C-alpha cells in the first residue's frame, strides 16, 4: 500500500524531464522525443488520478492521448523529413530562416 501521490510525482518527474529535453536539446528528433516523454508523464498522471477517483474514464482518456500522440508523431516525422530535404541539417538553430 503506497500513497497515490507517489505515482503522480513520478508522472511529474517525467514531465519535467520532457520539458528540459525540449528546451536544451538542439536536434529536432530529440526535441520530438521529449514531447513524447511529456505525453507519457501525463498518461501516468491520468491513470493515477483514475485510481484516486475510482473512475475508469481516466484510463479511457489515456487512449485518446496515445492516438493523438501517434498521429502527431506521424505528421511530425514527415515534417522533419521535409525539413531535412531542404535544409540538409537537423539542428534547430540552423532552421531559422523562413525562406532559404
Amino acid at each position, binding site marked *: 500500500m503506497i500513497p497515490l501521490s507517489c505515482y503522480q510525482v513520478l508522472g511529474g518527474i517525467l514531465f519535467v524531464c520532457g520539458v528540459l529535453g525540449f528546451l536544451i*536539446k538542439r536536434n529536432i528528433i530529440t526535441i520530438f522525443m521529449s514531447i513524447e516523454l511529456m505525453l507519457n508523464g501525463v498518461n501516468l498522471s491520468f491513470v493515477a488520478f483514475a*485510481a484516486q477517483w475510482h473512475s475508469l474514464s481516466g484510463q479511457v482518456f489515456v487512449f485518446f492521448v496515445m492516438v493523438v500522440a501517434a498521429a502527431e508523431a506521424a505528421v511530425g516525422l514527415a515534417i522533419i523529413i521535409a525539413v531535412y530535404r531542404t535544409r540538409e541539417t537537423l539542428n534547430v538553430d540552423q532552421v531559422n530562416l523562413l525562406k532559404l
Partner: protein
Amino acid sequence: MFHLILFLFFGAICVAGAVNLLVQSHPINSALSLVVVMASLAAEYLLLGAEFVAAVQVIVYAGAIMVLFLITIMLLNAGKEERTKGSRVAILIGVPGVLIGGVLVTGTLLTSPNAQAVPIGALKGDSASIARLLFHDFLLPFEVTSVLILIAIMGAVVLASRPEAVARGPRKDGR
C-alpha cells in the same frame, strides 16, 4: 512493502531512462532510452491495475511509434549533437527554471489532501469495462480520433513525398 519495492524499481528505471535521454548526445541512444521509459511505464500501469492500458502502451507506443522514430533516425543518419551558443544559454537558464517548477509541482502533489494509500492493482481496468466506456460514453471522441488518424496518414504521405517527382512531366529527350 512489496508494492513499494516494485514501484521504486520500475520508477528508478523510468527516471534513469528519462535522464539518459537528456544526457546522451546521439539521438539513437535517446530513442532507446525512451523505449526503456515506455516499457517501465507499462509496468507501472500494471501496478495501478490498468492491464489493458499497459498492453496497449507496449503495442502502440513502444512497439510502433518508437520504431517509427528509430527508422527516421536511421534514414536521416542523424549524427551527434553540436553545442551552440543557444544551447548553452538554454542549459544555463532552462535547467534551474524547470527544476524550480518541478519542485513546486511535487510539493503541491505531496501536500494535497486527496491522495490515499492504494494496494497493487488499485483500479482494475479490464478490457470489457474499458470497451463499454469507450463505445458508449466516449463514442463521439472515438470516431473523431479515427478521422484524426486518417488525416494524419494523408498528411504524412503528402509531406514526405518528393514534390519534384510529382510535378515532373516526361523529359524532352525521351529518357
